[in-house]
């Protein structure tokens, strides 16, 4: 079967590049909004709210994974394997905690990610500081019902972040461009 002309990409050729306009195949799903009450975002939020009864157990499972990574680290020290497992566990918590309803835990996990990711040598990462982060994550989760939770978590996160930043500044002082990248404001638009 022959394809229609509009099914093929159009190409504008220049001296050192081409600009290709692919066929707009998703055009088929775009149409005028006929129902003013139709709100797909609200529907998705409602669907997520139905799922939220599971979030507590999911958060616990992620924290158990982080604790397991900490135990492996204590047994074997920093190796490629223990480093990766710790970073993945912390990174997942950083990305999920707010969605699960535990934003205070996400900030602590973010600090741990920075510590683990940006140290120039993994063997120089202070394990005691890693453990303090993991303990903080577990403590905040355990005490999440406390009325002063946010205040305590904020103070804890600030202290951990300050110590981590100090460590990163000292250990990365020989590569100022990298250091600048670590402390630059994030580029990706948030949720």
């Amino acid at each position, binding site marked *: 079967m022959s394809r229609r002309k509009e099914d*093929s990409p159009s190409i504008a050729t*220049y001296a*050192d590049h081409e600009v290709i306009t692919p066929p707009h195949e998703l055009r088929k799903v*775009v149409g005028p*909004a006929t129902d003013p009450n139709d709100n*797909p975002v609200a529907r998705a939020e409602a669907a997520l709210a139905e799922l939220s009864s599971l979030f507590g157990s*999911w958060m616990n499972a992620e924290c158990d994974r982080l604790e397991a990574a900490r135990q492996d680290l204590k047994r074997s020290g920093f190796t490629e394997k223990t480093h990766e497992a710790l970073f993945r566990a912390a990174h997942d918590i950083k990305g999920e905690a707010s969605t699960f309803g535990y934003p205070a835990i996400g900030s602590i996990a973010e600090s741990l990610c920075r510590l683990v990711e940006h140290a120039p040598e993994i063997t120089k990462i202070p394990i005691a500081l890693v453990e303090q982060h993991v303990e903080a994550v577990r403590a905040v989760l355990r005490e999440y019902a406390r009325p002063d939770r946010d205040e305590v978590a904020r103070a804890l996160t600030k202290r951990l972040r300050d110590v981590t930043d100090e460590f990163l500044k000292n250990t990365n002082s020989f590569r100022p461009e990298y250091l600048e990248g670590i402390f630059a404001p994030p580029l*990706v638009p948030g949720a």
Partner: protein
Amino acid sequence: MVRIDFNRLRFLVIDDNAHMRRILRTLLHGFGTREVYEAEDGAAGLEAFTHYVPDIVLVDWMMPIFDGLELTQMIRQQGANANPYVPIIMLTGHSEKKRVVSARDAGVTEFLAKPISAKSLYERIFNVVVNPRPFVKTKNYFGPDRRRNVNPNYVGPERRKGGKAEMFNEPPLLDKAKVPG
């Protein structure tokens, strides 16, 4: 006002974290999508991409075997699969400039920083469906035009050279790959 008929869109979600896959699936179903396929690492993701031919790919950056960045580069290889133009939305906890530039240069269409929300995911999908960007092919890049806007105040050197030489329609890559007989 424009609406998207999610019912007719096919998604592929590639993330090694089962909780995040479940959240994304829930949000997509909430929007009205029926067809959501999942893969838990880059290799399985590439296989699923070839098999299901999704309209939109949601991919996590950090994954075992090969990560979201490598997977994007594989999908963007012209001639290697049926749809190198597929919109790729990268979900990422990495928001540092260096990381973002790397992902952009791999051919990612949109970024979505975690934690995600229904609104932010919808906005990225809306953008790739309603406002698709042209693709640019250079000696060392193939992917969505990295210039989202024309800056009238730009004063630096023009990196893209040459006047417009020719405009033509190229046969689809899929047809090119077909062997006669």
